[in-house]
């Protein structure tokens, strides 16, 4: 530096300026790494709980059910039916036939019933993925010592069966199909309710409303509403949708479920409307931002050829704001997807084995299911909760990816 021909008093502090820049750069790197670290811990913890060895004890050892030395896994359907008839009470067999005649059931179904009701596997102990990988010897020793009759299996709690099975009180057979379907129904109702209303309100506030104190008040209030805790919306939903509007939300007004003794307003409709209400301010704010980002020159161009306000908004402003509106809305919906508190308050069911069939069905949702499982004392349900969290994260990731794709595909230059 001393020999530089550029040397002057202005350059004397250059090393110090570089040093300051370097320090800030390190600070930013550290904050980024800290974020990545904690997120990785979260993900590792969940994955760790989602897979691992389990010790299974059986009511009857499956080997003892073998017919002529053929294990039950390889028996033909007819033999399985006989085996089932022999090992369950006549009353239970009658019930099963009443549900669906044996002729109409396939072999795998009958085998599953035998395993569940005759073999009766019970999870004695579970281990995490890390333990399963690094301490296998120890686990085998523990099983031999504590559960001499148990079988050691590697269980992927997150599996296709888990995703497609309905809720069950037996952790080995419990799944999240009803919860996923419930969540999707909720989202459907929330989207149909919140997207048009939110976009409409944003268009009015941005394009049509004047600059009066009343509009300033409305704008400020919407911004505040976006920060209201979600449980408040749950209380609102309980009071308005579940209680006050019960004839509508329970479906009674439309002739639904009139025979049901448990008819009430704790339905998908109530839940979806509550979630819609929750994200309405977020959608309005996002849509306003998107509309504001449309350059004024475009509006002037439209007015300049004699378009009316509505023609300008409809043909030019709105089409150019749609990518922004969509991105913001999808992000709002992914927030609603993970919302638990309002659904707990309006009384979502925690144990539902039947798929929702209409907006008037009782429902459970993924976050409710996770919440319910984590509050159970048995270890196995923690594993189930972890697997459900992975599914929830994957669905959220998908929604966000869709938002990004939409933004990239439709974003325009002016």
């Amino acid at each position, binding site marked *: 530096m001393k020999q530089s021909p550029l040397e002057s008093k202005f350059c004397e502090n250059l090393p110090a300026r570089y040093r300051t820049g370097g320090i800030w750069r390190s600070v930013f790197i550290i904050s980024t790494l800290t974020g990545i670290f904690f997120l990785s811990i979260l993900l590792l913890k969940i994955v760790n709980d989602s897979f691992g060895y389990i010790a299974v004890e059986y009511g009857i050892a499956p080997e003892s059910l073998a017919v002529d030395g053929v294990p039950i896994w390889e028996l033909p359907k007819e033999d399985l039916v006989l085996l089932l008839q022999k090992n369950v009470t006549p009353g239970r067999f009658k019930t099963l036939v009443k549900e669906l005649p044996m002729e109409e059931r396939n072999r795998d179904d009958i085998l599953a019933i035998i395993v569940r009701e005759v073999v009766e596997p019970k999870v004695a102990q579970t281990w995490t993925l890390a333990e399963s990988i690094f301490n296998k010897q120890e686990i085998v020793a523990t099983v031999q010592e504590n559960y001499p009759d148990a079988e050691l299996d590697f269980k992927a709690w997150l599996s296709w069966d888990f995703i497609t099975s309905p809720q069950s009180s037996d952790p080995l057979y419990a799944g999240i199909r009803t919860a996923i379907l419930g969540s999707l129904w909720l989202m459907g109702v929330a989207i149909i309710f919140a997207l048009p209303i939110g976009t409409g309100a944003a268009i009015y506030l941005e394009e049509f409303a*004047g*600059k009066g104190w009343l509009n300033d008040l409305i704008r400020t209030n919407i911004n505040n509403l976006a920060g209201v805790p979600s449980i408040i919306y749950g209380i609102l939903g309980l009071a308005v949708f579940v209680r006050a509007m019960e004839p509508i939300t329970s479906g009674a007004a439309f002739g639904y479920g009139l025979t049901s003794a448990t008819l009430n307003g704790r339905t998908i409709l109530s839940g979806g409307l509550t979630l819609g209400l929750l994200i309405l301010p977020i959608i309005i704010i996002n849509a306003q931002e998107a509309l504001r980002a449309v*350059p004024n*020159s*475009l*509006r*002037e*161009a*439209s*007015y*300049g*050829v*004699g*378009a*009316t306000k509505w*023609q300008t908004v409809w*043909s*030019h402003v709105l089409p*150019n704001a749609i990518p922004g509106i969509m991105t913001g809305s999808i992000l709002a919906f992914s927030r609603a997807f993970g919302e638990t508190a309002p659904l707990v308050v309006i009384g979502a069911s925690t144990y539902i084995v039947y798929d929702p069939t209409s907006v008037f069905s009782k429902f459970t949702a993924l976050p409710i299911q996770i919440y319910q499982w984590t509050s159970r004392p048995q270890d196995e349900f923690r594993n189930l909760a972890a697997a459900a969290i992975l599914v929830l994260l994957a669905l959220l990731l998908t929604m966000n990816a869709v938002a990004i794709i939409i933004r990239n595909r439709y974003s*325009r*230059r*002016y």
Partner: protein
Amino acid sequence: MALLQTSSSNILESKNLNIYYGNFRAVRDVNLSIERNKVTAIIGPSGCGKSTLLRAFNRMNELVPDTHIEGNVIFEGQDLYDKSIDPVEVRYRIGMVFQKPNPFPKSIYENVAWAARIHGYKGNMDALVEFSLRQAALWDEVKDKLKQSGLSLSGGQQQRLCIARTIAVRPEVILMDEPASALDPIATLKIEELMQELKKNYTIVIVTHNMQQAARASDYTAMMMLSKEGERSGTVIEYDETNTIFTRPKNKQTEDYVTGRFG
């Protein structure tokens, strides 16, 4: 100032026109008569209210909140600011081309066809698009890519597309707000040639910073200037044939400005 031109050849006239932004008077006592089928240039230093005045001629200024005017703008014998007049119709009959080319983010064809369609044009749309693009001297350059986005064109082409878009609704007056200030000299020249062609059918009012452009392209020139003392509002200090303004200006300030002696 008395009305400078009063004959039936005037299409547009402002009478004691004052334009306010809130309480601030931006333009003061403008009396201007725009002659039919001529190019009238409005020149003057930055911030003297040229664009504000131009936008008052087709009520575009109303898009800015808190704007109001005093006085009258007479178009074909009607007061444009009369309560019974719809600003949408005003803008339809007095079109506008802006400083920054602002084609719609739609195809070239749609850029021209859209305005005609919203006004209920029922004729042959292809013919109208071709006619308008030909009038704007753009047809030969874009006839093979009408489906492409208007934004894919160069700046000069975009500006001519905006002119074609304005022509498509057959306005009587075209207001141009520094239409060439964002363009290079060649594109600027094309726009100026175009104005000479267009004035056969339309009346053109152009705001420009470029005095050579005013001298080359206009028939009449209005010189605007901020008042020296008191409220800082702009007004027309001299209005005459362009030739007179640039060779024998009556006003000392005009002379200083057009000869480049003005700061």
